[in-house]
């Protein structure tokens, strides 16, 4: 598998580590309810199709990336810097 890092270009999978759903960027506010915390920490969709994932280019530029990937075909549809991702909070 190869991921096209927006800064470094296409790189081998081994330079990256996987964190989980990109939802991890949507950190709840201090006032969030218990349900909101539960959703943030534990509840994830498991789609057969495109999914948004958080990857870390730890052996490269140390950018966090949001990778849109199809879980059926393994096709990578988009890679963006986490700082530009729609999930990212303040």
């Amino acid at each position: 598998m190869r991921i096209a890092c927006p800064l470094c270009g296409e790189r081998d999978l081994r330079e990256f580590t996987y964190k989980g759903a990109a939802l991890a960027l949507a950190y709840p506010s201090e006032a969030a309810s218990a349900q909101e915390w539960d959703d943030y920490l534990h509840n994830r969709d498991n789609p057969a199709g495109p999914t948004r994932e958080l990857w870390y280019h730890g052996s490269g530029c140390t950018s966090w990336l949001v990778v849109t990937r199809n879980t059926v075909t393994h096709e990578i549809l988009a890679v963006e810097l986490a700082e530009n991702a729609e999930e990212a909070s303040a």
Partner: protein
Amino acid sequence: MRIAGKGLINRKKPVSFTFDGTVYSGFEGDTLASALLANGVKLMARSFKYHRPRGVLTAGSEEPNALVTIGNGASQDPNVRATVQEIYEGLEARSQNRWPSLAHDVMAVNDLGAPFLGAGFYYKTFMWPKAFWEKLYEPVIRRAAGLGALSGAAVTDKYERAYAHCDVLVIGAGPTGLMAALTAAEAGVDVILAEEDSVLGGRLLSESGEIDGVPARDWAEATVARLQGMANVRIMTRTSVTGAYDGGTYGALERVGHHGVVAADLPKECFWRIAAKRAVLAAGALERPVAFQNNDRPGIMLASAVRSYVNRWNVAPGKAVAVFGNNDSAHDTAADLLAAGVHVSALIDSRPDATTDLPVPFYAGAHVCGSEGRKALEAVSISRASGIDKVQADCLAMSGGWNPTLHLTCHMSGRPDWDEAIAAFVPRAGMVPGMIAAGACNGVFSTAACLGEGAGAALAALDGLGVEAEMPALPAAEARDYRISPLWAVPGKGRAWLDFQNDVSVKDVKQAAVENFRSVEHMKRYTTQGMATDQGKNSNVGALAVLADATGRGIPETGTTTYRPPFQPVAIAAMAAGSEDKGFAPERLTTSHELTVKAGAPMIEAGLWYRPSYFPRSGETTWRQSCDREVMHVRQAVGVADVSTLGKIDIKGPDAGALLDFLYTNMFSTLKVGRVRYGLMLREDGHVMDDGTTARLAEDHFVMTTTTAAAGQVMSHMELITQGVKRKLDVRFTSVTEHWAQFAVAGPKSRELLNGLLDAPIDGESWPFMACGDVSVGGVKARLFRISFSGEQAYELAVPSRYGEALFAELRKRAEGLGGGVYGMEALNVLRIEKGFITHGEIDGRMTAFDIGMQGMMSKKKDFYGKGAAARPGLLDDERPQLVGLKPVGVVKQITAGAHLYKDGAEAVRENDQGYVTSVGFSPEMGSFLGLAFLKGGRARHGETVRMVDAMRGVETTCEVCHPVFLDPEGERARD
């Protein structure tokens, strides 16, 4: 028997080698199989299960029978295919799975028991009594059945891993692959041409046709020469592409040192990872055998193999060769044999309408239905409408048609389609993104069509790359239609073999169907068809055709088993190359490492770092003596320890304080410049991630310390926070762990030591507890932190790493001069346990600030990472395990880490578990073992006695629960 002809052997270079100790001679260019056949050796192996005598079936990497062991001792390679192994002077090959010898194999008795040993025999027979399996049945079966054996010694040969990149990867260098590579290369893109054979040309090397009016082999040679002259082409011979993976990544195994005496440092094999933007699969096709009674006698081989031996290696595989097939390949083979002057005793074609002009006894609409001979073929039986004829033959060339080598197209879960016209599976387009199958592996068999498909596939690949190119002029070549009439198994009694490698017969597959193993995947596992080194390359399609017939379904409905990587066997040594010994993981060494090792300190691993356990002195016979002494040095004089391994992160910017406020549970923006504060960091789920001290060196400049173990994790965590969670913060940070060599100077005489060393002396007032700032050592700008992990008056002194070794030596000398010395991890551990300071032994990922008694550090005035999650009721439950101290009060005065705690008098069973011990040390000052532990509701239980049981070590004692800080609870020493 060697015959005349212009093969690819170098008759000027004879090569001698041994097989089972006998010396034979071949020529440069021979494989072990061709050389043995040239010497009249037909018996090369014993079969897996029944120990039946076997000869070579093929001339390629799909060989199921002729597996041998090469070499001796640690560099012994089992299960090497004789058809792949090139001979070289001094090669030692041995047959496998026989005793005492290949010709007289005692285990051949299995074959007599064959009626009882069919499919599922093991499953049915060795079930009862259950206990017999491990002790009796399995060892006996394993000894009787099997392939070659490993030496049992650690591998001493070198293996290698490497990466390659290209625009177009062409897999296979037959007519299709050569044409594809040439077309792509002429368009100027980077091409890798990978070929598993040692010579490029594929089937052109084994056949007798012409291309562009010259022998096909000469055309191949000329084309290869052209490719070799192009800077954008990389030709990789002896390289088998073993797998297709996501994103255009391909695995490939190169045989580097298998074809000669290996020079020191030369790898035996190299495992390549090739990243290709596009790929052309030109893997060709594999001929398939026909199942008939006793179709496994040495001398019976595939027609394509016979052509290879005759044309490429100038070996006649027999004196009288019979040829049997259901397609035109049989006729081509007979023609080649005749042209080479080999006697063809019969040509048998199962197609009733077949004709021939060849001057050979011809049988149309007939089948070979049996064979005779003991350890080699002597005659074949031919059944036709009029009855059964017997024909003398010491070799039978059989052709059941061709299977496209489409395995790689299925490596990403793709399934092939059945093509009725050629009675074979063909690849479905697009099954591996970016890869195009062309030529024979795409079900196109004439040379002309292959050349066209190769060029066409290259154009498609170029188009995908955005490169324009035109269809080249295609060379003229044979363009005959492929005609075949399916024939999988000749009806008849006895055992007709489908899978030679696993001894699976037609009867076994039918038996599986009878027992309702109707799915091809179930049949495979029940009969073991398609397993081991050839992975059913010779038998899959035949076996599923028999299964389809037995279950009354068509072949497409029956389907195939799943083709998975690797396409060829890959030694684990090749995949893991470089990871042995010191290559296993990077070693991180501190600047004091050399001196530490020289001092005789045993080193222990802390993550990737190496740290001293203790520094033995003469007269000390146990580690405890050294450790106790080192602890007392710190408590009574001064000790020095290298603490460079702790993570140090330099944080700068207008929002540096704000970032720290969010990262840590407690407040940092209020910290005064020149001061240090202890902080606690949580994960998003509210559990403790790490702890450490952070110093404020300037208004917008902090240096954070992490634990050794969590340094990398904290760094990536901070990246995540600043890039995605608090992305508006204007702050930058970087690791400076490596830049600073940092040493703890701890003990009542620590200030005295420093004042003899620092360029300007310090005092307690200007450098109070938790102060930090710049100092100078021998003119070198250094940093001093007054922090303590021992509870004593202590400092940490940091200098740029280049001075680390010199400073360590100096500190050590001065500490010893003051009645102290250097100390290792054991003493460091005791010192911190005495003070109740936690490490990752305690904060193991399951603990909250509440659990470790630091709930007071969770600020109510601000938000911090993990705050909301940490506030969940379950994480604040009074019954959660809480950090406590333990002192032994029973007869046994020992505490052991990992031991579990139970209420006094309670039975030591899981249901009664109250907690466990996380850290243990012997305090020389207190003369007692001390433990840190987690105990249910422990903070309210100080003074209670609990039962400690270590079932692993067999230690049991009674402990008193106490506050985790054993020594100087007011912290006066550190402030001294």
